[in-house]
C-alpha cells in the first residue's frame, strides 16, 4: 500500500518523462541504434582503415565486393627497368620524363637548372599539372647489372628536393642507371604518385632545353619492369565493398561520404535552428504588432520557391561547404521560427513568466532563460526530422550535378555515380546498392528516432 502511494507522488520533469517514454519506443530505439552505429562507423573506422577515398588504382577498375589483390602499398618499390642515357652536362636545364605505360597521360617531369633540381611536376595529360612537394618524392637509385637486375646501390632512398643537387648518378653521363621510386602513401600528393608507380614505366626521356631533341630519339627501348622488390612484408588488400571504376575502395568512400552528408545535415540544421529560434522567440514574446510584422515576413518568405534560389546559389557561385550550409540553413529556419513562436505565444501568459516579469527580469533574460527551455522539445524533434531532409536535399543537388565540390564526395554523389555506373544489366550493382543502403540506413534511423521523440515529447501520451 505504502509503495503505491509513493509511486503516485513521484514526479518527473517533462524532459525526464519524455526520455522514459522514448526508452519504451522500440522503433525509436532501433532508429537511435542505427544512427549511432552509422555515425560511429563513419567517424572512427577511417582511422583504422588503411586506404584513402582518393587513392585510385585505375588498372583495377570496378571490382565486386570482397575483391582481393596484392597490396601495392606495401610493395611500393618498383624498379623502373630503363637504362638512362644521361645528358651531357648538368649546367643546362634538363628534363627527365618518366612516362608510364598504363597511364600514357601521366608523367613526372623533373627539371634541373645549373645542376640543381628545379621543378618536379606531376602531369596528367595537359589538363592537370601539379607541382609536387619535392621532399616527398623518394626513390632508390641503382646501377644496373648486365643481366638487368639491380646492382650496386648508388643512393638509397634519396629525396629529390628543390634547389638541391640531384642524387649522384641520376644525370651521370653514360651510366646505366635504374631508377626506383619509393613513395610513402602518407598524404594526398604522394598517393597520386603511388598510382603512377604501381604501373610500369616504359620510357625515360632526357631533354635539353636549348637543344630540342625529339623525345623519340632519346627513348631508350629496353626492358619494362625488371623486378619488384618488396619493401615490407607481403600482404593483400581486400576491398570489402569492392572498388569503383577508378579502383577506389568503395567502403572507405562510403565512410567519408557519410561524414560529409552527416556534417551537411547537422550543420545546416543547426544554422536554421539558431536563426529560427531567435527569430521565433522574439516574435512570440513581444506579440502584437511586432509579432504580426515578423510573422508576415515569414509568410512572404515561405511563399518563395527557395529551392530554386538554392540551386541558383549553387550554380552561380563556388559550390563550397559554407555556401551549402548557409543556403540550406536559410531555407529551413522559417519552419523553426513558426514552431518556436507558437510555443512561446502559449507560454507567454503563464504564471512563471508573470513572476519573472514581476521580479524585474529583462525581456532578453525572460526569452533566453525562461522561455527557451520550454521550446526544447519541439526543437529536438524538429532537428532529428530536419537532418535527414537536408541530407536528402543535398543528395538531390548532387544528383543533378550541383553537389559540393571542394570536399570528398557525399553519399548523394556516390549514389549518383552508382546510378551512372550501373550498366544496362546492372552488372556494377554494388556501386549503387552500397551507398544507397547506407544513405537509407541513416535517413531511416533519423526518421524513426524523430518520430519516437515526437511521440515522447507529447504530454498526452501515457507513460
Amino acid at each position, binding site marked *: 500500500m505504502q509503495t503505491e502511494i509513493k509511486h503516485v507522488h513521484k514526479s518527473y520533469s517533462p524532459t525526464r518523462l519524455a526520455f522514459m517514454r522514448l526508452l519504451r519506443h522500440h522503433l525509436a530505439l532501433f532508429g537511435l541504434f542505427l544512427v549511432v552505429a552509422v555515425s560511429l562507423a563513419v567517424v572512427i573506422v577511417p582511422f583504422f582503415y588503411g586506404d584513402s577515398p582518393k587513392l585510385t588504382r585505375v588498372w583495377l577498375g570496378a571490382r565486386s565486393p570482397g575483391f582481393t589483390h596484392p597490396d601495392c602499398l606495401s610493395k611500393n618499390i618498383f624498379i623502373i627497368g630503363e637504362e638512362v642515357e644521361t645528358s651531357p652536362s648538368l649546367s643546362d636545364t634538363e628534363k627527365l620524363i618518366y612516362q608510364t605505360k598504363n597511364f600514357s597521360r601521366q608523367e613526372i617531369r623533373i627539371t634541373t637548372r645549373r645542376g640543381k633540381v628545379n621543378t618536379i611536376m606531376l602531369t596528367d595529360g595537359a589538363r592537370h599539372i601539379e607541382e609536387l612537394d619535392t621532399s616527398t618524392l623518394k626513390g632508390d637509385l641503382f646501377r644496373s647489372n648486365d643481366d638487368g637486375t639491380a646492382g650496386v646501390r648508388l643512393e638509397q632512398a634519396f629525396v629529390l628536393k628543390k634547389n638541391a643537387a640531384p642524387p649522384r648518378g641520376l644525370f651521370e653521363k653514360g651510366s646505366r642507371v635504374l631508377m626506383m621510386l619509393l613513395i610513402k602513401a602518407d598524404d594526398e600528393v604522394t598517393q597520386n604518385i603511388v598510382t603512377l608507380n604501381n604501373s610500369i614505366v616504359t620510357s625515360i626521356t632526357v631533354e635539353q632545353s636549348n637543344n630540342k631533341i625529339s623525345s623519340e630519339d632519346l627513348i631508350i627501348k629496353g626492358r619494362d619492369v625488371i623486378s619488384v622488390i618488396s619493401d615490407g612484408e607481403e600482404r593483400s588488400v581486400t576491398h570489402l565493398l569492392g572498388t569503383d571504376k577508378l579502383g577506389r575502395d568503395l567502403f572507405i568512400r562510403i565512410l567519408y561520404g557519410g561524414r560529409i552528408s552527416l556534417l551537411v545535415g547537422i550543420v545546416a540544421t543547426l544554422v536554421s535552428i539558431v536563426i529560427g529560434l531567435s527569430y521565433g522567440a522574439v516574435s512570440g514574446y513581444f506579440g502584437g504588432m511586432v509579432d504580426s510584422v515578423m510573422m508576415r515576413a515569414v509568410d512572404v518568405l515561405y511563399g518563395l520557391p527557395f529551392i530554386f*534560389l538554392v540551386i541558383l546559389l549553387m550554380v552561380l557561385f563556388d559550390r563550397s561547404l559554407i555556401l551549402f550550409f548557409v543556403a540550406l540553413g536559410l531555407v529551413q529556419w522559417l519552419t523553426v521560427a513558426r514552431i518556436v513562436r507558437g510555443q512561446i505565444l502559449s507560454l507567454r501568459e503563464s504564471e512563471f513568466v508573470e513572476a519573472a516579469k514581476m521580479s524585474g527580469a529583462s525581456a532578453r533574460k525572460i526569452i533566453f532563460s525562461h522561455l527557451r527551455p520550454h521550446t526544447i522539445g519541439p526543437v529536438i524533434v524538429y532537428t532529428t526530422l530536419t537532418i535527414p531532409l537536408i541530407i536528402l536535399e543535398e543528395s538531390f543537388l548532387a544528383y*543533378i550535378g550541383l553537389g559540393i565540390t571542394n570536399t570528398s564526395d557525399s553519399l548523394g554523389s556516390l549514389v549518383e555515380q552508382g546510378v551512372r555506373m550501373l550498366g544496362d544489366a546492372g552488372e556494377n550493382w554494388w556501386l549503387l546498392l552500397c551507398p544507397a543502403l547506407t544513405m537509407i540506413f541513416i*535517413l531511416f534511423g533519423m526518421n524513426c528516432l524523430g518520430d519516437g521523440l515526437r511521440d515522447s515529447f507529447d504530454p498526452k501520451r501515457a507513460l
Partner: protein
Amino acid sequence: MFRYLLRRLVFVPIILFILITITFFLVRMAPGGPFSSDRELPPGVEEALTKRYNLDGSVSSQYGRYLVRLVQGDLGPSLKQKDYSVNEIIANHLPPSILLGITALLISLCAGVIAGLVSALKSNSWLDYSTMALAVIGISLPVFVFGPLLQTLFSRVFHILPVSGYRGISLHLILPAVTLGLPFAARFARLTRAGMLEILSEDFITTARSKGLTERTIVLRHALKGALLPVVSFLGPAIASITTGSLVVEKIFNIPGLGREFVESALNRDYFMIMGTVILYGTLIIICNLAVDIVYGFLDPRVGNAD
C-alpha cells in the same frame, strides 16, 4: 473569409516582386556572363550582342527595363537558344512538367490517404505497423534510387512498362509519376493516420458512437473532414517540393521538362531564361499555396473568422 482572402491576394504581387528582385540581382552578381567563353570576342561584337539583348547600361536600368517588359508579359529572349524567346521555351517544356507533377500529386494523394485511413482504422495491428514502416522507408528512400529500381524491375526484368521518354498521357508517365509521388504518398499516409487517430479520440466522435451511428458514417461523415486538415496544409509545401523532385525525375526518365532547362540556363548564365523559370515556378507555387489556404478555410471554419 472574404477579407482574409483579399489580404492574401494583396501579398501575391509583393512576394513575386521580392522574388524577381532577389533573383535578378543574384544572377547579375555571379561571376561570368552569357557571352563569356574561352574565345575572346571582338569588342564590337560583344557590344552589339549586349545592345541587341538589352544588356547594356547599368544593372539597375536593365532591371527597370526588364520589369517594364515583364509587365507586358514578355520574358525576353533566350541568350543561349538563339531564335527562341523564353516564352516559347517555357511553352514547349512546361506541359510535361505540369503533367508529371499533377499525376504524381494525384497518385500520392490517393495512395497516401487510403493507406493512412486503413492504418488508423486498424491501428496497432500488423497492417498498421507494416504500412507505417513502409511509409518511413518511403520518406527515407531517395527518388533517384527508387526511380532506377523501378526501371530495372518493370522495364528491364519484366518488360511491362517503358524505361524512359515522354509521350504525353501514356504508359510512359506511370513510372516517373510513381517515383515522384512515393515520398509524398508516405507523408500523406502519416499525416492522415495521425489526424484520423486524433479526431477519433475526440468527444464528438464518442457522441456519434453513442448515438449508434455506423462506423462507416462516423469515419466518412464526421471524422474524415477534420482528419484531412493536416494533409491539406501539407499540400502547399508538397507542391513546392514536387517541383524540386521533378528536376531529378525528369533527369532519370529523360523527360523534356522545364526542370532541366532551368539547371541548364543557370549553368549557361542565360539571364532571361533563369528569370523566366523562377518567375513561373514562383507564381505557380504562390497560387497553389493560396488555393490550399482557401480549401483549408472551407474545411476548417475557425480560419479567417478571427479577422
